């Protein structure tokens, strides 16, 4: 007979293993997330950090300013502006970006922030949808996401998002392009190491829409993902394709707990 303390330890270990097998892949998959979790800003130069920290110098704030104007502009046959329904974005939109992408039952699909803005335009404002990555779409998305600056990415995976999440997770590990690389090869297995003059980040989305010096402009998370496809010499999926939306869902889960920085600044 084993001593009592050892029996307790054995029981606890068995319980732990059993729990791991029962909770399911989402929790067991925790090892897929980088540890410690680090925002991309930690991998940038002092100049980029000071640019992001200074709300006047941060060029992304120009899109926030434009978005604030657009929030109050009536659109479509409804003659309504965003503000007519949602009033002050500072309160109504606070924390919203932290929950996106979500599953929309009416649309029967995954919807990101850009998609939600267009659903509002077509269904509520009776207006034409905004073109993805257009200046007005970027301005509105940035303005809305900016209201969640400082909030933590929730990255929850409810049952309805599960299928999309699994596809995104698979996509994250799939080798693509002439370079035959998957997301995971750089951003999970080699973050913190250098590639030419750059340090590879963990590849989170918490700063987006973000101003990239490389773009000389602000851009969406999907543009950043497309840039990675281009980087490994793969065909870039179109904006709002299921492939990019699935990746957004997976990335939100992977980066849950990080602080939203919109509009972030990156090199």
């Amino acid at each position: 007979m084993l001593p009592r303390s050892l029996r307790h330890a054995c029981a606890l270990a068995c319980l732990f293993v059993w729990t791991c097998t029962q909770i399911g892949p989402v929790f067991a998959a925790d090892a897929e997330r980088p540890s410690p979790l680090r925002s991309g800003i930690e991998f940038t130069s002092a100049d980029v950090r000071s640019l992001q920290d200074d709300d006047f110098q941060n060029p992304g704030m120009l899109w926030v300013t434009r978005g604030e104007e657009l929030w109050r502009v009536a659109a479509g046959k409804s003659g309504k502006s965003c503000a007519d329904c949602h009033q002050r974005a500072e309160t109504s939109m606070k924390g919203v970006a932290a929950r996106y992408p979500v599953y929309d039952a009416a649309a029967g699909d995954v919807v990101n922030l850009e998609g939600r803005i267009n659903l509002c335009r077509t269904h509520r404002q009776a207006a034409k949808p905004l073109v993805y990555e257009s200046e007005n779409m970027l301005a509105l998305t940035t303005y809305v996401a900016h209201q969640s600056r400082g909030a933590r990415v929730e990255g929850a995976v409810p049952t309805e998002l599960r299928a999309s999440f699994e596809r995104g997770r698979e996509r994250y590990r799939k080798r693509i392009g002439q370079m035959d690389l998957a997301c995971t090869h750089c951003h999970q297995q080699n973050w913190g190491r250098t590639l030419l003059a750059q340090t590879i980040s963990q590849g989170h989305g918490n700063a987006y829409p973000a101003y990239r010096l490389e773009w000389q402009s602000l851009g969406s998370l999907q543009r950043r993902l497309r840039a990675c496809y281009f980087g490994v010499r793969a065909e870039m999926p179109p904006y709002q394709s299921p492939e990019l939306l699935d990746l957004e869902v997976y990335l939100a889960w992977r980066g849950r707990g990080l602080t939203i920085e919109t509009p972030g600044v990156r090199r």
Partner: protein
Amino acid sequence: MVARVQVPGNAKRGEIIDIRIAIQHKMETGFRFDLFGKPIPKNVVNEVVCRYNGAEIFRAELGSGIAANPYMQFSTIAEASGEIVFDWVDDAGERGTERASITVSA
């Protein structure tokens, strides 16, 4: 054209104050091509003028060597309460203006 300016709302007479301006503009160099291979014409904000109660205090002539979404910081001596007005123009002739008021105490 969206722009943001920063001027302290209050200052003491004789105090040197910092003034900042940021303008949303591509500052197109004229060296780039569009997706069809056609050159994109040069279009930059080529002049920014700052006037304090009507008198010019600062003027900048800019070229394509200034980064997109041009940002500038300069200074002036707070002399009197009033308005600081910024005017700029790009190669396409599009003009922009922004203003900020300042209260100067003795």
